[in-house]
């Protein structure tokens, strides 16, 4: 078993679509796929075209690059332009527009930016450039945050003194709760599978039990997503609001305890700003004072340029599920993956990029 093709079976998908139709009847139901990788999967396999019209799928704030606000992009650019610093980050960040430029353009203008695949590569970069300061721009949600924490522990273990981290990591359940106070009706959440690998399906209990909104943790292959939708529609039909787990092959109730342990050792909760949503209490991860010597913002403070938002870009509204990418006047015209105006068009899992690629 390769755990991929088996979950792309057309017959199984067709069976699920019929069950969704049956359970849905003529109810109008809106479900939010929180994770950008789900958005990508839904677009790639054309799942919306298989589903009844009275079932809406809304894209949520689940793309780390997209929710990173301009001031943090500007901060990364300021580091790239600082003498003696190499800014290391994941590839998705390179083309994200900040207030006036991108990391890639900053590099062309003489800045130093290195794309890494893994945080361990950033630590190696520090080892092989002892005369430079390596600043890793650590964006990401719960699957990535432990890898950033592990890089700090690795630098500590190896006695590396020129490795620093900007912690821009975020956690997903707080914005899910925040969106429930907003203007969009959400009848159920398709919960992010790989975030849940780390935090466990139990992490959504408050949303299901206190806010009374059904939650189903889902995998990323087409039958995974369809099965999760089927489970959610049945919960809505039956008037239940529970946490169910479709992705049992990797997600446990308690999550990955070792990964969470490493994350908790290095990080502590802090308030964080999300593009389009604003500041959400406790939704970010800051570096604990005990690891302050690896904290770029403490050790190497820089002053980024004044933040300017592009007022014509509706990325913020797309991230809240208020608007769809195709509602934007710039979509596919001025704004395309080769020349993105807003963050949602940059990352492959940004809603705008996913809609554009599979339109």
């Amino acid at each position, binding site marked *: 078993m390769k755990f991929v093709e088996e979950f792309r079976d057309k017959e199984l998908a067709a069976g*699920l679509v019929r069950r969704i139709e049956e359970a849905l009847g003529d109810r109008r139901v809106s479900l939010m796929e929180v994770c950008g990788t789900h958005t990508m999967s839904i677009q790639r396999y054309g799942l919306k075209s298989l589903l009844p019209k009275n079932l809406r799928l809304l894209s949520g704030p689940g793309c780390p690059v997209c929710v990173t606000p301009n001031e943090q992009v500007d901060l990364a650019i300021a580091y790239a332009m600082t003498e003696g610093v190499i800014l290391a980050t994941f590839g998705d960040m390179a083309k994200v527009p900040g207030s006036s430029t991108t990391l890639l353009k900053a590099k062309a203008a003489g800045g130093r930016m290195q794309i890494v*695949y893994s945080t361990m590569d950033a630590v190696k970069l520090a080892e092989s450039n002892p005369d430079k300061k390596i600043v890793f721009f650590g964006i990401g949600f719960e699957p990535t945050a432990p890898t950033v924490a592990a890089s700090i522990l690795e630098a500590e273990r190896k006695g590396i003194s020129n490795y620093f981290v900007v912690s821009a990591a975020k956690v997903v359940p707080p914005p899910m709760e925040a969106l429930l106070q907003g203007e969009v009706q959400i009848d159920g959440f398709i919960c992010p599978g790989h975030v849940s690998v780390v935090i466990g399906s139990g992490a959504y209990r408050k949303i299901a039990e206190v806010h009374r909104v059904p939650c189903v943790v889902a995998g990323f292959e087409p039958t995974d997503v369809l099965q999760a939708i089927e489970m959610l529609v049945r919960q809505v039909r039956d008037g239940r609001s529970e946490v169910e787990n479709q992705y049992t092959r990797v997600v446990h109730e308690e999550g*990955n305890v070792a990964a969470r342990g490493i994350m908790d050792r290095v990080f502590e909760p802090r308030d964080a700003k999300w593009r389009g949503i604003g500041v959400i209490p406790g939704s970010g991860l800051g570096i604990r004072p005990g690891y302050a010597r690896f904290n770029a913002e403490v050790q190497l403070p820089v002053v980024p340029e004044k933040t300017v938002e592009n007022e014509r870009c509706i990325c913020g509204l797309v991230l809240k599920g208020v608007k769809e990418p195709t509602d934007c006047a710039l979509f596919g015209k001025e704004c395309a993956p080769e020349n993105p105006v807003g963050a949602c068009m940059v990352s492959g899992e940004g809603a705008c990029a996913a809609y554009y690629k599979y339109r």
Partner: protein
Amino acid sequence: MCLAIPMKLIEADGPFGKVEIEGVKRKVSLQLLPDAEVGDYVLVHAGFAIERINEEEAKKTLQLLTELALAQEAEEQ
């Protein structure tokens, strides 16, 4: 960014190991999955193994979907 790929762990040496898929081999960190064993299928995210894939659970999901599809067909006939 939260993409993770199922790969087979073919070597493990302390905090690092090697994974393979379709002949492509990569180094992987095992710090987040210290009890991973050679032969396990693991989910790999940004150079780290983040979880072991449970084959029994995968089979159960597929079995359930097959039964649901068959039951649906029988109902419609």
